[in-house]
C-alpha cells in the first residue's frame, strides 16, 4: 500500500494558541479516514494545511508525494478539497460554477462537458443544473461543493464535513458515493456524526486540543469502552476527566 497522504509532525500556532500540535499520520489508497474531534480541536486547520491553504508553523504535508508547500501546484492537481461550509459563488449557476472549476483544472471542449456532466451525475445535481447556487437548499449547496471536489477524479479527497446539512437520504447517498470511490482513492472526511464513521470509514483518528489522541479502526475504538459505543469512547477521550478538572480547580 502506498501512502497518498503523508502528514509529518504538522503544527500550527496562531499567536500563543496552538491549533494543531505535532500531528502525524498517513493515508493509503483504499483507506477512508474519519477525522473526529470536538469543535475547535484542529480538524479544519489540519485539513486546510493539507490543502495548502494554511501555511503550517512546522512540519510537512505531502499529497501523492508532492509537498503542499514547495510543490503546491502538483499537490493541488491531485487533490479534491471540500472546504468547511462548502463555499461556492452564490450568483453562479451550478453548471457555470462547475465549468469554472473545470477550466481552472485544465479541461476544455468536450472533455470539460463530460467532466461537468459526470460530476453533476455522481452528486445528483442534474435537476438544478441551471439554478443559481444561492437559490439552492443547504443539501444541494453541499453537493455542489462535493461535485467541485470530485470533478477531476483526484486520487486524494479531503472533505470537511461532507454530509453536514443533508437529510438522511442525502447522507446515505453521499456515504454510498464515498464507499464506491474508496478503493481507488485516499479519502479524509471530517465529521461530527459518529455513525457515519462506522458506516464509511476504514479508520478513525480522534483529535483533541490539536493532538491526535486515538488512531484505530472504528471497531477497535468502539471496544475501548464497556458499552461498545463510539459515542462513549469519543466522550471518554475528548472530555477532561472529572478527577483532572477537580485537580485543576
Amino acid at each position: 500500500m502506498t501512502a497518498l497522504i503523508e502528514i509529518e509532525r504538522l503544527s500550527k500556532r496562531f499567536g500563543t494558541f496552538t491549533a494543531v500540535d505535532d500531528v502525524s499520520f498517513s493515508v493509503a489508497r483504499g483507506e477512508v479516514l474519519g477525522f473526529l474531534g470536538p469543535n475547535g480541536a484542529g480538524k479544519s486547520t489540519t485539513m486546510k494545511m493539507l490543502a495548502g491553504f494554511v501555511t503550517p508553523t512546522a512540519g510537512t504535508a505531502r499529497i501523492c508525494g508532492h509537498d503542499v508547500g514547495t510543490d503546491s501546484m502538483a499537490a493541488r492537481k491531485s487533490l479534491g478539497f471540500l472546504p468547511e461550509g462548502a463555499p461556492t459563488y452564490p450568483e453562479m449557476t451550478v453548471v457555470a460554477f462547475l465549468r469554472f472549476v473545470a477550466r481552472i483544472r485544465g479541461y476544455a471542449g468536450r472533455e470539460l462537458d463530460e467532466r461537468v456532466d459526470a460530476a453533476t451525475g455522481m452528486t445528483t445535481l442534474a435537476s438544478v443544473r441551471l439554478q443559481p447556487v444561492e437559490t439552492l437548499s443547504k443539501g444541494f449547496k453541499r453537493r455542489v461543493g462535493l461535485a467541485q471536489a470530485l470533478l477531476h477524479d483526484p486520487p486524494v479527497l479531503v472533505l470537511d464535513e461532507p454530509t453536514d446539512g443533508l437529510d438522511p437520504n442525502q447522507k446515505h447517498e453521499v456515504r454510498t458515493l464515498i464507499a464506491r470511490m474508496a478503493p481507488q482513492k485516499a479519502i479524509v472526511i471530517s465529521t461530527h456524526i459518529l455513525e457515519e464513521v462506522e458506516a464509511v470509514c476504514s479508520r478513525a483518528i480522534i483529535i483533541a486540543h490539536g493532538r491526535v489522541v486515538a488512531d484505530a479502526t472504528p471497531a477497535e475504538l468502539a471496544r475501548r469502552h464497556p458499552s461498545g459505543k463510539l459515542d462513549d469512547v469519543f466522550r471518554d477521550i475528548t472530555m477532561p476527566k472529572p478527577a483532572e478538572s477537580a485537580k485543576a480547580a
Partner: protein
Amino acid sequence: MRNTLIVARRELGGYFATPVAVVFIVIFLALQGVLTFNLGNFFDRNAADLVPFFNFIPWVFLLLVPAITMRLWAEERRLGTIELLLTLPISQTQAVVGKFLAAWAFCAIALLLTFPFVLTVNYLGHPDNGVIATGYLGALLVAGSFLSVGAALSAATKNQVIAFVLAVAICFVFAVASYPVVTDFLSRSSPALADLARRLSVSERFQSFTRGVISLRDVVYFASFIGFWLFLNTVIVEHRKAD
C-alpha cells in the same frame, strides 16, 4: 495567463449577475453627465472638447472605484470561497491579477458607455478626437491605479466598509498630491517632498493625457503604480488569507 483570464472572466460575469454592474454604470453615467454639462459648463465654454468631462472623471472614479474593489477580496473571505479559489491549481498572482483585470475591464465598459459625450461634441463642433482618445486612455489608467489600491486594501480587511473608506482616503491622497494646497504646504517645510508629491500624483500624470500627450514616463508611472499595488495585494493575500 490562461488561469488569469479564467478568473477574470468568472469575476466579470459576477458583476453582471448582480445589480452591482447596473447600479455602478447608471450612477457613473449620471454623475459624469451632471458634472460635465451642468457644473462643467460644457455648452457655455464654446469649445469643442471634453475638458470638463475629463476634469471630473478622476473624482468620480475616486468615489466609485473603491465601491467596486471593496468586495473584491473581502467578499471571498466572507463567503469562504477564498479557500476554494486558492486551493485550486492556480497561483496567488494569477488570482490577484485576474480579479484586477475583471474590475478594470468593467471600468473600461463603463468608460465605453460614455460614447454619447464623444458623439455630442462631434455633432456640435470639430474636436480633436486624438486628444479625446488619449484622454480616455488616461482615464482608464487612473481607474486602474485606483482599482489596484482598492483591491489591495480589500485583501487587508474582512470589513467592506473599512476597505472602502481606506481606499477612498489613499486614492484621495494620490489624487490631490499635486494640488497647490498640498505642494505649497510641503514646499514651505521641505521642497524635496513637494517635488516628490507632484511626481507621485495620479491627477498630474492624467492631465498630460487629457492634453493629448502620451509620454513614456507617464505610462511607466502608471504601470509601476499598478504593479506595485498588485504586488502588495499578492503579499497581503498570502499573509491574511486564512485569518
